[in-house]
Each structure stands twice: as structure tokens, then as C-alpha cells.
């Protein structure tokens, strides 16, 4: 009962959050690489990046400067919410394939 209640509250919060994020960007993981490798986002705003992993293996979208550490399972999708960011370059990488999966968010 308490679990159900919690689920309902979390679902409500989850739905409420959809409207809170201003802008959407897309990112694809293919052959352990990010496409595109550079994303330009507005500074000072909340931004959401939808990451689609087309590989069969899981990848971890990681960026200490963006404060994100998120596993995207193989053949699935995850949303990364970042910001508000100060203008600048924010590097990110795929922790499970760090030698090939690299990219940068540029806030301007």
C-alpha cells in the first residue's frame, strides 16, 4: 500500500518534471562513439539531452563537470538533465568505452 502510494507520488513528480525542462537535444551512441560529438546549448538554462544507445552493450554517460553519471543500457534510451550552466566547455565521455566515446557540451 505504502509502496503504491510512493509510486503514484513519484509518477506525479515525474510527469510534472516534463514541463520544467526548456530545451531538448539528441545524442546517439553508435559503435561506442557519440554522434554528434559536440552539442551547443544555451547557458544559464536547464537543458535535457536525450541519449539513444544503438549499440548492443551498455554505456555510461559520464561527466564530472556536468555532474552526470548515467548508465544507458544497450538498445535503449535515457534522458540526461543538466544546467543551468555557466558559459564554457563541458566534456563528457562513455565510461565503459572511454577511449572512443568522447564529446563536449558547449554552453554559450
Amino acid at each position, binding site marked *: 500500500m505504502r509502496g503504491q502510494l510512493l509510486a503514484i507520488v*513519484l509518477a506525479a513528480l515525474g510527469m510534472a*518534471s516534463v514541463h520544467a525542462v526548456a530545451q531538448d537535444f539528441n545524442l546517439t551512441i553508435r559503435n561506442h562513439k557519440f554522434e554528434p560529438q559536440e552539442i551547443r546549448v544555451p547557458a544559464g538554462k*536547464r537543458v535535457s539531452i536525450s541519449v539513444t544507445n544503438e549499440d548492443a*552493450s551498455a554505456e555510461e554517460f559520464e561527466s564530472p563537470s556536468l555532474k552526470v553519471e548515467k548508465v544507458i*543500457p*544497450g538498445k*535503449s*534510451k535515457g534522458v540526461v*538533465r543538466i544546467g543551468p550552466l555557466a558559459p564554457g566547455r563541458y566534456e563528457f565521455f562513455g565510461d565503459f568505452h572511454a577511449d572512443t566515446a568522447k564529446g563536449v557540451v558547449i554552453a554559450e
Partner: protein
Amino acid sequence: MFGALIIVFREVIEAGLIIGIVLAATRGVSGRGQWVATGVLAGTLGAGIIALFAEAIANAFEGSGQEILNAAVLGTAVVMLMWHAAWMARHGREMAVEMAAVGAAVSAGRRPMTALATVVGLAVLREGAEVVLFLYGIFAGGTSSSSLFAGAALGLAAGAALTSLTYYGLVSIPARHIFTVTAVLVALLAAGMAAQAVQYLDAAGVINVLSSQLWDSSPWLPQDGIVGRMLHALIGYTDRPTELQLVAYLATLAAMAALTWLSTPARAAHARIV
């Protein structure tokens, strides 16, 4: 192989330190080995289940299921640590006296070992799910090789070594101080977890306040370095904290202090008389 070793070790660090602290905090409690082992086992099983449903979890809550789950897991662990802290404040002194008088092998089984076993289980669950997904990726990606698994096994062994190092380091503290030391460690652990939990809620878009970064100490002490990671697990060190993270951290510390203060028998008795 080295890459696999590093990834697995990094994930194991946090759970390893927590298990070390829990073992030290429960020194002298009979049957604590089984409790902790049960926690580790349940956590490992849970990690497998989470990895199995990783796709469904990732897609839940508009792609933020993982963050919500992490926040819920961390929040539960914080509550368990608070329960433990309150209990220890009430009974800790008599236990310390008992231990000093009769040696280490006395203490009561009436302690809420369930709380700490749950904390251990949740720590293993959270870190373990990533390890399982990573190892599964080695299979699925077709890059499978025994050297990667050897690396993973070594990473796990290194994590276990860190656990025993933490434990033996802590139990070398004299018995009359160990409850104070572990109480402080447990409070810092809880504060760090609360700060992490609010960051997950922020990443999930559930919370949208106070998300500006307070400072950046990554040039001096990067959080992804080995020292940074250990401090992150132990005291919740964050090199780029948000305002909300600091608020959550301080609020949890204050709550732990208040709980401990209110639960101490002398004061509780005094409060009843007044």
C-alpha cells in the same frame, strides 16, 4: 584487462568502504557476519535483477527511472542510518562498558542489525548493478575475453582488500572511542548520501531549485581520482556541489546530531521528568 579492473574497482570502492564501516560499527555483535553477508548477497541478487530490467528502468519516468531509483535507494539508506544512529545513542554507552569489561564478544543481538544490513545491501545493489551491466556489455558487444573477466575479478578483489583495510583500521581504535568514531562516520556517510540523492532528483528533473554550482575544487582534488572517490564515499566529498547538495548535506548532519542528542538516555530521562 586493466580497464575492466579499474571500472570494477571504482564501483566497488563505495560499497567496500560502507561494509568496512558497518563491520567496525558492529564489532562484538553476535551474528553480525551473517547479517552483513545476507546484505551483500541480497544486494548482489538485487543488482542482477536491476541489470535485467535496466532497459525498463531507464525508460521509466520519461527516461529518468534510473535517477529516481538511485535517489530512492539512497534516501532509504539515509533513513536506515538515522535509525541506527538513534539506537546507538540510546544503547551505545552500555555497550561500550560491556565490551570494555568482558571483551569484544558480548553485546546483544537486540541491535537493529536489519538497518545496517539493509544499508550494506543497498550499497551493493547500487554499485553492483553497474558492474553487472558493464560485464554484460562485454558479452553482448562480442569483445568478450577471459582477460576482461580476470580484470573484473581483480577489481573485485581489490575492493575486498579495501574493505578489510577499512575494517582493521577502524577496529584498531580503542574500544571506548570506537562508537564515537563510527557514529561520526555514519553521520557523514548519511549526509553524503543525502547530497547524492538530491543531485539524482535534480538530474531527474524532480527538483529544479538551488541547482547552481557553489564551487569547483576539481583542479586540486578531483572527485574521479582515487582519493576523491574514497572521500566521496566516506564523507560525501563533491568537487562541484550545487547549493541544494550543500543544504541537504548540512541538514542531514544536523538531523543526525539532533537524533543522537535526543536519544541519549540521560537527556531523554531528563526530558521525561521535566
